């Protein structure tokens, strides 16, 4: 039976938390996933990402093109909307039936067609009123999009939290407004909002995040991973979030976590430690060198020296970590087995 549904997903996060980059990395994530499946002899498990309409296809090409050209997307203005379709076959573990009895499990190919209606708002829109940035009609529009969404991907940027501490500002107000709107229309699911929520701790490739995970003894290396990228298990992702909350500049990042857990059904919240661009890996090597893994570098050539600003660019190939999984979770299509990374 084909998994054939539409899933509207909204991506929320503070300004410059990497929302657009995260979405831009989705195509690459799927491509790397398919590559790994083929290398593991599971070519049947493959997915494709296409734009549903020409505008969506264009943004898919544009964002992917920017990342492969090793530049970051420019900041979003307003709310960009696009629809991408995830098609292909996924191998899922299903109970093996013998004489009407379940005996172990078997891999079964499940045709998949998932339409992702994505809303990528500028960070300022989710911020609370009066805090600056564009706010007015886009806020209402974003709320409408959130109401229509099946899932929400919250991007928690620990680096911004170290420096500015804005996560709470960007989650509290919008969730409260959403709860208020949905309460009035009786769209509450019991005492909770009905969405699937993927909380993504982004920028895992940043040294301070990696160091925090290391210090908390949460780092693992997936033995199935041919590049041996460090990872944090999804089960430990919440623990990492809590560790990172301790170094939040405002000290309110834990309140953002509380807000999410207060308003959404616990079994529909899942935590992921993600990196849209992944770790740097020298082309000549097969495995990551943890003494030289940073994939973001400053690029002074982009700006005249007297400006004093820092223009960032991507250093090497993009190897997204946990980009496909949150999207599938938020869309209600959490697979039994899509591979540990994408």
């Amino acid at each position: 039976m084909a998994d054939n549904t539409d899933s509207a997903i909204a991506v929320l996060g503070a300004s410059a938390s990497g929302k657009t980059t995260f979405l831009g990395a989705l195509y690459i994530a799927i491509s790397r996933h398919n590559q790994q499946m083929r290398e593991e002899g599971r070519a049947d498990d493959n997915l494709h990402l296409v734009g549903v309409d020409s505008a969506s296809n264009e943004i898919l090409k544009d964002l992917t093109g920017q990342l492969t050209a090793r530049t970051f997307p420019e900041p979003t203005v307003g709310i960009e909307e696009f629809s991408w379709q995830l098609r292909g076959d996924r191998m899922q573990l299903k109970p093996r039936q013998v004489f009407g009895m379940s005996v172990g499990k078997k891999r079964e190919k499940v045709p998949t067609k998932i339409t992702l209606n994505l809303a990528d708002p500028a960070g300022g829109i989710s911020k609370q009123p009066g805090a600056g940035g564009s706010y007015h009609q886009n806020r209402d529009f974003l709320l409408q999009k959130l109401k229509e969404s099946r899932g929400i991907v919250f991007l928690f940027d620990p680096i911004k939290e170290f420096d500015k501490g804005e996560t709470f500002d960007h989650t509290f107000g919008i969730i409260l407004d959403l709860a208020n709107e949905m309460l009035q229309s009786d769209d509450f699911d019991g005492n909770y909002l009905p969405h699937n929520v993927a909380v993504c701790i982004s920028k895992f490739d940043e040294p301070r995040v990696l160091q925090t995970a290391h210090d908390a003894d949460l780092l693992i290396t997936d033995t199935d991973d041919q590049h041996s990228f460090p990872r944090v298990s999804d089960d430990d992702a919440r623990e990492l979030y809590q560790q990172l909350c301790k170094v939040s500049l405002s000290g309110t990042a834990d309140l953002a976590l509380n807000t999410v857990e207060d308003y959404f059904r616990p079994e529909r919240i899942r935590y992921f430690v993600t990196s849209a661009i992944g770790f740097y890996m020298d082309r000549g090597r097969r495995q990551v060198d943890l003494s030289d893994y940073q994939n973001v570098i400053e690029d002074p050539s982009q700006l005249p020296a007297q400006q004093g600003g820092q223009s960032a660019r991507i250093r090497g190939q993009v190897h997204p970590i946990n980009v496909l999984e949150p999207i599938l979770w938020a869309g209600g299509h959490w697979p039994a087995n899509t591979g540990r990374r994408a």
Partner: protein
Amino acid sequence: MDLDPGATLAELSESGEERIEFVAEWALKGKEREDNEYRLVDCSTGKVSADNFTKLLERYSPGSLRRLPEVTVSWFADPTDQQYYMALATHRRPDPPKTDAAGRQFYETNFFCLNYAEMASYRISYTSLYEGFERFQLPPEDNGIVATSGRRIPVFLTPGQRIDQWPPQAVAAAAWLLTNLNVCILGADHVPVEQRLEFIEQVASLLPYGMRSRLSASTWTMSTYRSHSIRLFFTSQPRNNPDDRVMTWAADTHLPPSQRSPGRSIHRYVKWLQAPGSIATLGGMAEPRGFDERDVMLVMAELGLTDAPGPIPREHQYHGQQPQSRPVEALLDDLGHRLRSRSLQSVSDIIGKLNEHAKRLELLVPHRQDYQRKISEHILLRANLPLTAGETQELYIALLRLAFLPIDYNSYLEVATSLGDRDGRIIHNALAEVMLGFTPEELRVQLLLRATRGKDAPAEYFLKHPQQPSKLITQLILDDQIETKHREFLQRVALAELARQARDGDHDEVHNALRSFGYLAVAFHGFYPKAREQRAVLTKVLTIAFGADPPDDAGHQILNNCAFAAITPALVVAAIEMNKTPDASQLAWDIIYKFATSELTEDSQYIVELLNKCRPAGMQDPKKNLPDAKGKGRGKGRGKGNGKGAGKVIRAIKYNFRGDNLIWTGIGILILAAFALIAYLIHAFLQVGS
């Protein structure tokens, strides 16, 4: 540039070399180095607030632009002064480039807004604005309003050129805009921004200039930014919006289907565009217009292109005439331009010519509305013209003769509108004095114009020109034609004069006049939606009628002096308040008796007999005090005629079923409903049992 004083508007436009000063309020959207998010970085400290700039920049945002520079034109209306503004936004990378806190490069939007009326007076094109502001560096040194200059590029073709030399797609785009759809142009990714802006200019020039007061257009919008509010835009992919007409660059020239309204008129319009001088005519139609069906039909009517052209007065039709065939309009345009640019050498000659025309045309006024439009566009009746007092007075006289005589209340409103004042309160003293020189006959116009002399001016006028109380009431208070914005002033003046007459003159005459109009209760009921306001003004009227020390039975007199239909709730309250005794039973009896004897009640004689039989002791027989004058209220819906219509019956029910009555009625209904429910339950129980 020195201008030839005899040059016509078309000749001035043809020169194309003339420079003009643009005065604009501005805003800069972008980022500082520590910002992550786009925001309003700075703005001028003029009339447009930072908050409004933020909203405008958001409303007309084209999304996250990837390729720069791009240009967006837009508009907004300032509700405080009822003025329209045109805006131009240029989106470009800062030079040298900058990055935000996240190390991302960004672009800046320089937003300039200009008064539409001023732009319209010169028929300023978007191209001209772009040239003027393209390289303007924001923010300026101070945060004031910026001024720059650019070539004055007219929007309309010179008479020799023909519309068929324009791209047919521009004609098609203009036609689709007239159907109130957005127009989305695809396939122009390779076309330079200047050429796309020129296309927008051409499309706008194929519409009346006044539509620029509501046109938004952008040389690019991001295809995934689907919620933008831009009416004419280039983009790479359609956004699947049913309100968008998607066209392919240089290929699609389809017009709206003629079967669909207003398609037939639009086909006529496109045909009319082929006529020589059509674009010049459109350039002259500067009255602000939108794109909804009503405004489009107005445009069609002005051009004589509606299905039923018969009722359109000839002077409203353009017929493709050239500006130079209309010497007065050309003179008005010329004068407006010279006053604006302060090229004053030949202004007195132009004023003289206008006066000559005015004397010749005074009785005919063939193009009165066209002249008014021109006067309005150039705001020629404004105060503080750069002229001597004598020249100013002479100009006012000429313009009033050309477009506004005779001076009556309607022309007073037209003059106020030409000054851009929808409130009608700012006809300035110099102009008001000239208007008074034409000796307006209407009392209200005399008073409105004299108001500019000071608050005592109306009283001084009444001393020299005494007025009958009934005339004061009918002309200054009860006249339905008085605009709401003038009503308060005229009513205040009238009541002050009535009070003076009651105090210093014949009190009875004033009282009789007020009584004969039912103490104006019905009129005030229509004018004032709030009961408190009604009562306040009614109390003033009753104080004038009965004096500061009213008789003991003042309330009784008030109710008896009015027909039942002229008794409003506010009048009842005022009557009770006037009553010196706390017992209001006599007043209640009066009202019941009024109702019984009113035209609302059939067989009233029988009811009156019944009432008289059961009249409580001490109650006066109202029949003895029935008014000799019925209420003559002229307010909304009450007191007119003698019909027994449903409206009056409903009002009677409304006034008689209030307060406690309603409560008791409600309780009765509830009891009946309870009985019905019990009966139903018993019935259901019996059915189950059987």
